[in-house]
């Protein structure tokens, strides 16, 4: 991406560097949301259905972690993945993999906390029915998650919004390497520091447009599913 062109020109001319950046942004954020969903949804559902001492505390901490500053998450993963850190031998620092890990750390609390709330509300409605059907604990989790699936789409979107918007974590663990770990948000940060504010704003608009499209697609899928399943 050369600074001589406006963001609109880059989009219209199909600038390959721009598309690589967009592709990486989506790949990293969607992968992180997927990983966070695989951890956060079962975790949230289990938390909704189980009662143990300290449960309230866990819920409060989880809710608080929804506001975890990205740069703190980034720094934690950085120290973990640094060659001098405990997982340094993996050689993951300054790679897209590290960015996925950092964003997973950011998104998991959001998905887990919102899933807990969603599933717990549904559980109040389903509790007697599932007990009467003799459904065991694992079956309950599976049933509630499946029946809450349309609400969980919104939960995943909240997670995706967080991942797609943040720059603090991925710039620390990814290094904003051109053509390798540069995403929409880190590119915007870079163009801002180069003083190319119009290009930075333009890229910002492209990012917003992409996020809007993804939300629209997910929303459409949700509505279609609800219409079909009730």
């Amino acid at each position, binding site marked *: 991406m050369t600074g001589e062109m406006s963001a609109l020109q880059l989009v219209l001319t199909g600038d390959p560097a721009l598309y690589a950046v967009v592709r990486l942004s989506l790949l990293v954020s969607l*992968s992180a949301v997927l990983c966070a969903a695989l951890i956060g949804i079962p975790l949230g559902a289990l938390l909704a259905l189980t009662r143990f001492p300290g449960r309230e505390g866990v819920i409060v901490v989880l809710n608080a972690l929804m506001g975890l500053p990205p740069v703190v998450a980034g720094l934690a993963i950085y120290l973990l993945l*640094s060659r001098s850190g405990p997982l340094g031998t993996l050689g*993951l620092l300054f790679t897209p993999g590290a960015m996925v890990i950092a964003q997973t750390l950011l998104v998991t609390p959001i998905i887990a906390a919102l899933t807990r709330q969603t599933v717990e509300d549904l559980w109040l409605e389903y509790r007697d029915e599932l007990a009467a059907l003799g459904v065991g604990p694992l079956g309950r989790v599976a049933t509630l998650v499946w029946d809450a699936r349309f609400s969980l789409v919104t939960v995943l979107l909240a997670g995706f919004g967080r991942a797609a918007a943040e720059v603090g974590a991925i710039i620390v663990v990814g290094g*904003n*390497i*051109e053509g390798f770990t540069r995403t929409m948000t880190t590119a915007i940060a870079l163009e801002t520091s180069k003083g190319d504010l119009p290009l930075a704003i333009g890229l910002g608009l492209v990012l917003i447009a992409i996020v809007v499209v993804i939300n629209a697609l997910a929303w459409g899928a949700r509505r279609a599913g609800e219409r079909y399943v009730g």
Partner: protein
Amino acid sequence: MFNRRTLIAALALGLAAVVPATAQDKSIIVSSTTSTQDSGLFGHILPLFKAKTGIEVKVISQGTGQALDTGRRGDADAVFVHAKAQEEKFVADGFGVKRNPVMYNDFVLIGPKSDPAGIKGGQDIARALTTIKNKKAAFISRGDRSGTHSAELNLWKAAGVDIEKEKGDWYKAIGQGMGAALNTAGSSNAYVLSDRATWISFKNKSNLAIVVEGDKRLFNQYGVILVNPAKHASVKKDLGQQFIDWLISPEGQKAIASYKINGEQLFYPNATDTGA
């Protein structure tokens, strides 16, 4: 929405993001400064290096202090920075193999065109800074242990000002990169020290202009150091050394000299000057 096949596909996608990163071998990581990156120098010389050697150079751009820290932790294969004293300490502490001078340019004092301190056109940086301090004219400091920041601190010292003691509301350390410092100076009518390369390539000059330049104390030397493989076995010493050798070779030096914006040369190669 959630069936098993899409799940597996998405998982595979996630893995795909991770795997090629580790499989990619002919590449090195260089931690460098914001000035070399933001000025576009790397965008100019790295394709030439890659065409010749096939080695991909991944640049992390940070302040000099942070870039050296990245090297210290073993997270980069080479560091390419501009703060001679810090670089020499880095090597002396055993983190780097050898410091190689590569190129220089100079710092310039940037300020509002309205020039509230009345220092425009001078050549004596020490006198200019003293005037700024006396008139309490707004000044933006990088405040981020970068090469430019340490150069600024040295210049205050040269002006006989103990900035730690004397600084007041007029002196703002923002703790950010060169571009952010210039953006801040532009929007708050303040003076700021910048390297010339970043200044020339900077796009948001607004009401700013060069007010002092040409003082020999504004000299800005860049050096490159291979991170010591004895400290960190993960360092790709052969590929890193190849990069350094190319930078200081006549070919690399020519590539640096040929980088121009609007006909203006940004960096001057001086690898042969062993004292630099």
